[in-house]
C-alpha cells in the first residue's frame, strides 16, 4: 500500500516534466508564436522572463516546479487571468460531466453484461456484442453529432448544446458514457462467465437460494472486482474524451478550455490543462488501487 503510494511520486514528477517540455516543443521562438509578430519588444521581453525562457533549461524546470507547488500556475496570455482561477472555474463542469457519464456507463454496461453472460451465445448476448462493437467504433466526434441529430433536432426534447439548461448535460454525458458502457459490457460479460463456473455459485444454487440472489449477491459481487480496476483505467479515456465532447457540445469545461487555448496559442493554459487532467488521472488510478485492496479480501490479506 505504502509502496504504491510512493510509486506515484516519480510518475507525477515525470508528468510535470513532460508537460513542462511542451512549451519547448514549440518550433522557433515560442514568444513570437504566442504573441504574434506585431507584439512590442517590451511585451516580448516581459513574456520571455515570465516564462523564464532566458534561463538555462534546468533552472526553468526548477522554477516551474517551485511555482506549481506554490499554486502559481502562471497567467493566461490571452485573458491575463490567473490560470489557477481559469481551471477552478472550469473543473466543476468537467467533473459533473465525467461523473454523470460514468453513472450512465455503469447503468447501461453492467446490466447488459450480466444479461449477455446469462444468455451466452443466445440472441441477447449477440445483440449486446454487436452493440458494444459498433459503439466502440464510434469516436466521440461522431457519436455526439448523431445523438444531437436524433434527440435534439429530430425528436426535439433535449437541448442541442450549451449549458444553460439543466438537461443540457444529458447528451454530452451519453456521448461519453456510451463508449465506456461498451467496454464495461464486454468486461462484465467475461468476468461473469468466469465466476458463474465457480464452486461457490453451485453451492449457492444447491442451498436453494433464489436465482436472482445467486446472480446478484453471489456472482455479480465476485465479478465486480476486475471491473472496478478497468473502470479506474478507463476513466482516463473518459477524461481525454471530454476534450472532443465538450467541444462538440459547447460545454465549458477543462476540455473546451484546452481546445480554446490551442486555438489562441495560449500555451501556458494548454500546458496547465494537460497537467491537471493527467494529475487527476494519476490520482484516480491510485484511488482505484486503494479501493481494490479494500474490497478484495484476498489482496488485503496478502499484503
Amino acid at each position: 500500500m505504502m509502496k504504491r503510494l510512493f510509486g506515484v511520486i516519480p510518475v507525477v514528477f515525470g508528468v510535470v516534466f513532460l508537460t513542462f517540455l511542451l512549451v519547448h516543443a514549440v518550433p522557433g521562438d515560442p514568444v513570437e508564436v504566442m504573441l504574434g509578430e506585431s507584439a512590442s519588444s517590451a511585451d516580448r521581453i516581459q513574456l520571455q522572463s515570465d516564462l523564464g525562457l532566458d534561463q538555462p533549461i534546468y533552472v526553468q524546470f526548477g522554477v516551474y516546479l517551485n511555482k506549481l507547488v506554490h499554486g502559481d500556475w502562471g497567467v493566461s496570455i490571452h485573458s491575463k487571468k490567473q490560470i489557477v482561477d481559469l481551471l477552478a472555474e472550469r473543473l466543476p463542469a468537467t467533473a459533473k460531466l465525467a461523473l454523470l457519464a460514468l453513472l450512465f456507463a455503469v447503468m447501461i454496461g453492467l446490466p447488459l453484461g450480466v444479461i449477455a453472460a446469462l444468455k451466452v451465445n443466445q440472441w441477447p448476448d449477440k445483440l449486446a456484442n454487436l452493440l458494444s462493437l459498433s459503439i466502440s467504433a464510434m469516436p466521440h466526434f461522431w457519436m455526439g453529432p448523431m445523438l444531437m441529430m436524433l434527440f435534439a433536432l429530430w425528436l426535439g426534447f433535449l437541448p442541442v448544446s450549451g449549458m444553460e439548461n439543466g438537461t443540457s448535460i444529458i447528451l454530452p454525458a451519453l456521448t461519453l458514457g456510451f463508449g465506456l458502457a461498451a467496454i464495461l459490457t464486454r468486461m462484465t460479460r467475461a468476468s461473469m462467465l468466469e465466476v458463474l463456473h465457480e464452486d461457490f455459485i453451485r453451492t449457492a444454487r444447491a442451498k436453494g437460494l433464489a436465482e436472482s440472489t445467486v446472480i446478484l449477491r453471489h456472482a455479480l459481487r465476485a465479478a465486480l472486482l476486475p471491473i472496478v480496476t478497468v473502470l479506474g483505467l478507463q476513466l482516463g479515456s473518459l477524461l481525454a474524451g471530454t476534450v472532443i465532447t465538450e467541444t462538440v457540445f459547447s460545454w465549458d469545461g477543462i476540455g473546451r478550455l484546452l481546445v480554446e487555448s490551442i486555438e489562441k496559442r495560449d500555451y501556458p493554459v494548454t500546458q496547465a490543462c494537460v497537467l491537471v487532467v493527467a494529475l487527476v488521472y494519476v490520482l484516480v488510478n491510485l484511488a482505484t488501487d486503494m479501493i481494490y485492496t479494500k474490497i478484495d479480501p484476498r489482496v488485503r490479506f496478502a499484503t
Partner: protein
Amino acid sequence: MSRKYWSVWVLALWLIGTVVVSLGDFHPNQIHLNLILAKPSVNHLLGFDDLGREILPRLLAGAQVSLVVVIVVTAITASLGIVLGLVSGYYGGWIDRSLMQITDVFLAFPGILLAIAFAAVLGAGLNNLILALCITSWVSYARLTRAQVLSLRQRQHVIAAESLGASTPRIMLKHMLPLLAAPLLVEATYSMAGLVIAEASLSFLGLGIQAPSASWGAMLRDGVRYMLIAPHYVLGVGLSLMSLVLAVNVLGDRLRDQLDVRG
C-alpha cells in the same frame, strides 16, 4: 466465408479506393458552385460538400492520408517499442527500471491527450501530426514486448541458446522475436484502429492536415455544421470512419482468436 471475412473485404475495399483515387482522374478539391451540398445521386454517390466538392473522392483522399499516417506511425513506433522492450526485458536491472518508469509517465496521460497537446504546440501539418502520434504510441509496444520477453527468458530453448553461447542479438532476433510476432501483430491491429480515430480526432480539432487537403476529421467537423440541411455529408463521412474502425477491430479480434493470443 463471405460473412466470416467481411472485415477483410471492407479493408480491401478501402485500400483499393485509396489506390484508385491516386491513380485515376479524380479531383477531390475541384469546386462545383452549382452543386453546393447537393444530395447523393447515381453519378455522384455521396453528394457534394459545403463548397461544392464531391464527397466520395474527398473521402478516399482522406482515407489515403489516414492510411499514410497509420502505416508510418505504426512502422516507427512498433520498431522503436520492440527494440526498447527487448533490451529492457532481456537486460533487466536499471535499464528496465528506468524504461518502465518512463512508460509509466507516458501512460499517466489519458488517451490522446498528450498527442493533442504535442500536435498543438508543434503546429499543424502532416509531419507534425505523425510526430505527435509517434511520441505517444510507442509505449504499448514497449510494454508488451518487455512483458513477453520476461516470460520468454525462462523458456528452455532460450536458456539452451544462451548456454550454447549464442550472441545476445541472435537470441533476441532468432529465438525471441518470432515468438513475439503473434501478440505484436494483434496489438498492432488494435493500435491501428486507434490511430485512425486519433488522426481523425486531431484533424477534427483542426490540428492535422490543413485545408484544402481532405481529412476525415475536418470533413466531419464541416459536416456537423450542415447536418440539418445536408445530413448526407456528415453521415457519409461518419459511417465510412465507423466501417473502417469496426473492420480493423473485428480483424484484431479474429487474429487474436486465431493466433491464440490472450488479451
